[in-house]
């Protein structure tokens, strides 16, 4: 167990900068999740921590030691590779045993741990097969098993559940959670699955283009994105952005002119937004914070026309056209009876509104919202 520290970490491949100056503290016993778009450098960061790539610049500390020049096998880590990297000539059992054998684990402990992990991963029956005789999801579980039997200082997991079905994935997630609670091993985890990120992480690091955009507790980052990238990246369907010009209405209250309509800015943002008066500002609202208000007009209620109804099981996503012409998404109850072409009134939940600077993408309300949360 150890904390991991990345200082100004840079990794360049010939002409690509995969990791572009990352600084991050991964506390001991924490569960840190990296998320970010495809190709943003998550895997590379993991590989740097593992010692499989040499940092072009910057420093990596594990425990209190700078490990830049330590080899992977000296770093005491276990890793789940995105592409599994199973040993094709070894059986599942041998694949899982190997790491333990390398660390001189006593035979009985090996047997025990492998049996345990296999059960947990529901691959007990596959132990004598070769990887080529396994399905994709089974291979992935073996890859995961190979890591969790170990008792390393740091776990590195690169999308370890991506090929599992939803049900198994929920189970595995729960198992990983339990495992982490039991062992408290510092874990760095890459996933593209929001739910996984939200439920597993102590801290979540959102990456883009080789850089970390925001770090923090998952719910915090979700509800207080630092910038439009983070806001748009987290959540599915992603946050709606509506551009408008900030002005004061006759009553002196701030409002956003979004074309043919206006949107009332809640009072508490007065301080932050005042300076943007007359400027372009982007309003952000998540689909799930939009509800259908069929009762009658109130504040921040926008009329719209339903264009697409997309039932997704537990919810139904509507694509609705605002009167301004812009299309936004709303996630509503699956029992809804609205149909394509229906006219609806959208209510934006006022507690969930975000405002951004369209130039820099920075959130204008980040500080105030975080404060709110903290004082709450």
């Amino acid at each position, binding site marked *: 167990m150890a904390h991991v520290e990345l200082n100004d970490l840079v990794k360049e491949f010939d002409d690509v900068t995969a990791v572009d100056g990352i600084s991050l503290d991964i506390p001991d016993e924490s569960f840190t999740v990296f998320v970010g778009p495809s190709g943003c450098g998550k895997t590379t960061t993991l590989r740097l921590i593992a010692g499989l790539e040499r940092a072009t610049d910057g420093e990596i500390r594990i425990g209190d030691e700078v490990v830049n020049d330590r080899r992977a096998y000296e770093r005491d880590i276990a890793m789940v590779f995105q592409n599994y*990297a199973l040993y094709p*000539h070894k059986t599942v059992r041998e694949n899982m045993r190997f790491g333990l054998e390398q660390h001189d684990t006593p035979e009985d402990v090996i047997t025990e741990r492998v049996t345990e992990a296999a059960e947990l991963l529901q691959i007990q029956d596959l132990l004598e097969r070769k990887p*080529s005789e396994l399905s994709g999801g089974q291979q992935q579980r073996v890859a995961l098993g190979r890591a969790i039997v170990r008792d390393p200082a740091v776990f590195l997991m690169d999308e370890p559940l991506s090929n599992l079905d939803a049900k198994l994935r929920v189970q595995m997630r729960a198992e990983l959670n339990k495992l982490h609670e039991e062992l408290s091993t510092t874990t760095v985890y890459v996933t593209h699955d929001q739910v996984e990120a939200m439920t597993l992480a102590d801290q979540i690091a959102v990456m883009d283009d080789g850089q970390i955009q925001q770090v923090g507790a998952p719910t915090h980052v979700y509800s207080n994105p630092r910038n439009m990238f983070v806001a748009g990246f987290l959540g599915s369907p992603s946050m709606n952005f509506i551009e408008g010009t900030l002005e004061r209405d006759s009553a002196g209250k701030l409002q956003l002119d979004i074309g043919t309509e206006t949107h009332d800015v809640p009072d508490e943002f007065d301080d932050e937004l005042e300076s943007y008066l007359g400027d372009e500002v982007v309003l952000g609202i998540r689909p799930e914070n939009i509800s259908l208000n069929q009762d009658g007009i109130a504040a921040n209620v926008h009329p719209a026309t339903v264009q697409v109804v997309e039932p997704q099981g537990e919810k139904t996503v509507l694509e609705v056209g605002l009167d301004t012409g812009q299309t936004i998404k709303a996630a509503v109850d699956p029992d809804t009876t609205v149909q394509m072409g229906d006219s609806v009134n959208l209510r934006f939940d006022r507690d969930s509104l975000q405002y951004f600077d369209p130039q820099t993408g920075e959130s204008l309300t980040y500080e105030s919202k975080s404060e709110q949360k903290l004082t709450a």
Partner: protein
Amino acid sequence: MSTEKQSLRRKLDRLFVPLTVGPTMLWIAGIIVYPTLKLLWSSVFWTNPIDGQKEFVGLRNFERLIFAEGGSGTVFGLAPDFVSITWHTFVYVGLSVSISFALGLGIALLLDKDLKGRGWFRTAVIVPWILPYVMSGLMWRWMFNSEYGAINGILTQSGLLSSKIAFFSDGTLAMMALVIADIWVFTPFIIIILLAGLQNVPEQLYDAAEVDGAGKVSRFVNVTYPFLKPSILVALTIRIIFDIRALDLVWVMTQGGPGKSTEVWASWLYRTAQVFNRPGEGAALGVVLLAVTFLIVAVLYRVFGESPY
């Protein structure tokens, strides 16, 4: 695509195996069947070296070569020649194959590294194999020359030795000279086969192994070796097959001498069949060699014969 072309394409596709395997089989069969039958056939005849008179003798040729017809100096009833020549062959093949394999593996691993200029190293390392064996044999004969050879020159002129060594007058030394020459000539072969084999090792498995805590040796054993196995099989098998019947170096360097102390199966066979003009016994020896080779290859197959996937 026209249907005609398509059906041709399909037909060709169905014939893939016959078309790819057929010609080779025909080629090999066409040119092997007769000589092989001839070999087996000849081995049960005895030809008088003087007048060429042939006589069917069944397995007597084998009996004579392998088992002593009574007499002294036999080991377990085996012919002394057979025992001593087998031993020489074993020493010659065993030493030169194992040493050159170890050396070749080491060099191949070095050359597999991402080194600048490894292209030149590779070429430099192959060269001994490109030279005609006869030339190499003569070269080593010259190197080991008792008076003017470079080896003696170095040893005496540097003061390591006070008097020169007559390498080719001593059975053991002559064998050593042969083994050295053989290693010199054939190590490049091992290097090349193993180097090609190393290209099949998926890089990501090294990563996985490193993360699993595997050091250099363990990575070799657990990742490199399984993928290298087919190439090791090829390298060792061909190397051993070549060496068991290698004649050129022995013939050029020692002709089996001094006395018979460097006589090996190959030179024995050659001498018997060609020099002594006793094709029947030569053929019998050939059959024995064939069987021994088969045996060795079968063992090698056992040990190295599975693919990594």
